[in-house]
């Protein structure tokens, strides 16, 4: 069992949530960067690889700030993956 404070909390929005079939999850904080986390997620198979890892338009936020694949991660961080925004 992974408690929230020792884990990385991950959120998926909009069509990512639908394609991946989940809105959120916790993963162990063994990933040092967003890129490492994406590698783990891509290993789950096609929808994960296509929607996230291979997606040039992938938008990333760490702790509510826009981030990139190089952004470092630590326990307790909240990472969100989403498509380009369409508000307004």
């Amino acid at each position: 069992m992974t408690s929230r404070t020792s884990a990385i909390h991950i959120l998926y929005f909009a069509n990512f949530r639908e394609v991946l079939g989940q809105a959120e999850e916790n993963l162990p904080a063994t990933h040092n960067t967003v890129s490492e986390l994406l590698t783990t997620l891509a290993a789950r198979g096609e929808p994960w690889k296509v929607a996230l890892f291979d997606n040039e338009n992938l938008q990333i936020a760490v702790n509510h700030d826009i981030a990139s694949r190089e952004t470092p991660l630590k326990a307790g961080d909240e990472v969100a993956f989403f498509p380009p925004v369409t508000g307004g």
Partner: protein
Amino acid sequence: MASFNRETLCIKIQTEDFDLTTEISALRQDHKNIGAVVSFVGTVRDMNEGDEVSVLELEHYAGMTEKSLEKIRLEAHQRWSLEASMIIHRVGKLLPSDQIVLVAVASQHRENAFHAAHFIMDYLKTNAPFWKKETLPNGDVRWVDSRVSDQEAAQRWAV
């Protein structure tokens, strides 16, 4: 000045509709040096990509949305001399002609308010975590794609 009440007045994410006159009055309250108020109201179109749209649903990333809108608002205050500003964005299910978004900016002179309102809307379009999903009359549901023209509009303001 930056009391808790005023801060919460500046950014609102809500399912309910808003009344422009009420919001502008609140924005102008206690600011006797305001000489210009510019407001922008975005509304739901009944057409998109050549198809009729019957329902528009807005999703957002609670927490990040407020933070990103506040960042955009404060950047506008840094770039132009403004007295007050506010952003209201609705979420949930909306129908054609419904109001979606309000940006209102008040300044001593009109030029600053015009520029700042334009800037806030352009940045909101490309930086705030909202996503639109539309339902067509035949029941088809699709996520709205982001537009290159919105990216270009935001890039105009790059410093």
